[in-house]
């Protein structure tokens, strides 16, 4: 078969400190023609011990070589389940770099930043329209930050009712950040087992609902990629019991333009702009986790809130019941711009197609692999498929399969998550991959299953074509070396 990964020209690279040569430097400055400024002696030092002394080309080659070891969504297929590693269209980058927007200072007066405020307002409206909520805040800087904002609003609502409920229900198919968020907001987490079907039933929620439950946090579609079809009934039960429903919207990519969580009765949901709306993932860069809410929570929105008055936009700080400010200035504006550009380029129909293609692609992979790889939950899944390593031969496990996929030229899928599946292999292709890419990936998965039967050492010793082969992850975690020392 046609493998993308080959043994190419992978250059070894030393640490920058090891390139150092005493006296070498990457600059030449003209002679000083003004009196030198003097710092107090205790604040100045003449030499920095151990600092690398290198030329410009040493530095450029060092970092360029290191960059060739990297793998990103611009390099190839990246089926990292739960993370939604879709391609990020470059037009979004162009928009974010327009000088009038990129150079807009956050202290610019409102009357001179009407365009920027208008964009934020329009993005709020578009997200509310897509999700069926009454209001949206753009402030949170990431998904988990959005969860925090949402749960703080839920707590504020309960406090305003004079209630001091202590518990939050969370099914085992929710995202792992949900229990952490509930705990951070001062709640006791009550885990709920989803059962053999992988779906949370209304009966199960009813059995756990009581007057000490402040909220249910549910991920929909859940982390097995399965739609929580009882969501409407579940929301009714929680509401009747005096609680609110938080939906983790990290998987909104699968239902955009098809189902609106607000219409189903959900009170709060965060969006991950980097998952659903094609803004860049990580790389140390900023994220954005807007939160949509039901109208009863509007008084508690983080402030300032972007509001429209006639043809003008302004930032409203006069909100006595607000949970307060969550982020310096107004959130990660550059990321909002990219998401807004994406929404406008796709359009309503386009966004619906995004979800349809994401679901179709995941189900195509599921159909091609489910006879070979064990699929623990048979329910119809949406945007991702979760397999286990149960059928993998030759004493090979999920980790070995993941390492072998690197040899075939793919970023491995998410492994050992969700925890409800032993040896989970969680594959999410996203909508941006063609059928050819999906077929090549499935061919690789099937070839690896055969290798496990007949030639397991290919998996157990993988990866073999990388700059470094299998690393000792256990030793790295048990005895980490966190700092370079020249003498070591």
């Amino acid at each position, binding site marked *: 078969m046609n493998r993308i990964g080959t043994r190419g020209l992978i250059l070894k690279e030393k640490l920058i400190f090891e390139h150092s040569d005493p006296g070498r430097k990457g600059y030449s400055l003209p002679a000083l023609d003004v009196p030198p400024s003097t710092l107090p002696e205790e604040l100045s030092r003449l030499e920095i011990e151990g600092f690398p002394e290198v030329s410009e080309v040493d530095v450029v080659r060092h970092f360029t070589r290191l960059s060739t070891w990297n793998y990103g969504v611009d390099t190839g297929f990246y089926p990292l389940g739960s993370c939604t590693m879709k391609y990020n269209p470059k037009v979004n980058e162009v928009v974010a770099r327009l000088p009038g927007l990129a150079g807009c200072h956050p202290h610019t007066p409102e009357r001179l930043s009407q365009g920027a405020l208008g964009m934020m307002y329009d993005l709020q409206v578009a997200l509310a329209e897509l999700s069926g909520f009454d209001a949206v805040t753009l402030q949170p800087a990431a998904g988990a930050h959005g969860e925090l904002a949402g749960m703080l609003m839920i707590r504020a609502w309960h406090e305003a009712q004079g209630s001091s409920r202590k518990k939050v229900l969370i099914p085992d198919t929710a995202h792992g950040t949900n229990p952490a968020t509930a705990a951070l907001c001062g709640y006791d987490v009550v885990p709920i087992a989803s059962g053999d079907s992988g779906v949370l039933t209304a009966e199960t929620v009813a059995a756990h609902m009581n007057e000490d439950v402040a909220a249910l946090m549910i991920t929909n579609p859940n982390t097995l990629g399965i739609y929580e079809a009882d969501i409407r009934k579940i929301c009714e039960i929680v509401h009747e019991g005096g609680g609110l429903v938080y939906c983790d919207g990290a998987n909104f990519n699968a239902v955009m333009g098809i189902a609106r969580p607000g219409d189903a009765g959900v009170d709060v949901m965060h969006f991950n702009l980097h998952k659903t709306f094609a803004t860049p993932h990580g790389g140390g860069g900023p994220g954005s986790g807007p939160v949509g809410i039901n109208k009863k929570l509007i008084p508690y929105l983080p402030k300032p809130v972007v509001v429209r008055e006639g043809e003008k936009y302004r930032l409203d700080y006069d909100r006595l019941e607000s949970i307060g400010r969550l982020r310096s200035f107004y959130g990660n504006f550059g990321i909002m711009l990219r998401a807004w550009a994406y929404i406008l380029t796709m359009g309503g129909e386009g966004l619906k197609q995004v979800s349809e293609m994401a679901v179709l692609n995941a189900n195509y992979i599921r159909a091609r692999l489910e006879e070979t790889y064990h699929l623990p939950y048979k329910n119809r899944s949406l945007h991702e498929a979760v397999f286990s390593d149960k059928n993998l031969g030759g004493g090979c496990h999920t980790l070995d399969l993941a390492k072998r996929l690197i040899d075939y030229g793919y970023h491995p899928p998410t*492994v*050992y998550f969700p*925890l409800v599946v032993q040896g989970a292999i969680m594959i999410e292709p996203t909508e941006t991959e063609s059928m050819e890419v999906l077929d090549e990936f499935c061919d690789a998965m099937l070839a690896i299953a055969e290798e496990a039967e007949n030639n397991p050492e290919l998996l157990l010793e993988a990866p073999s074509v990388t700059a470094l082969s299998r690393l000792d*992850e*256990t030793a790295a*975690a048990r005895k980490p070396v966190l700092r370079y020392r020249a003498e070591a």
Partner: protein
Amino acid sequence: MEIRDELKYSEDHEWILVEEGIATIGISDFAQDAMGDVVFVELPEVGSNIDAGKTFGVVESVKAVSDLYAPVSGEVVEVNEGLPDAPDSVNSSPYDDAWMVKIKLSDAAQVEALMDAEAYRSCIAEQ
């Protein structure tokens, strides 16, 4: 897979040994094998109270982070101080070197509700 006859077991794969009202708790051989190489252990403070069914610590392996669920309630009278510096003993010696906490039982009847070795053997056979 070693399952010791003298111990009781919980559905969350903790083992417990009761001697004169003091319960010693750790995780089973099955649990350590399922988790893979353990790299980090976090235990409660001496003097704190742990409640049956609630978490009392954390074990992290190269695969995942797992909570430790208390099989019984009581006050922590001793913790295995050396364990956080030798997390590998959870893998090599789950029943001896890697005991985790000793607690003074607040309700001895809770122990009776746990599985004996035979029941635990059939419990893990289903998984």
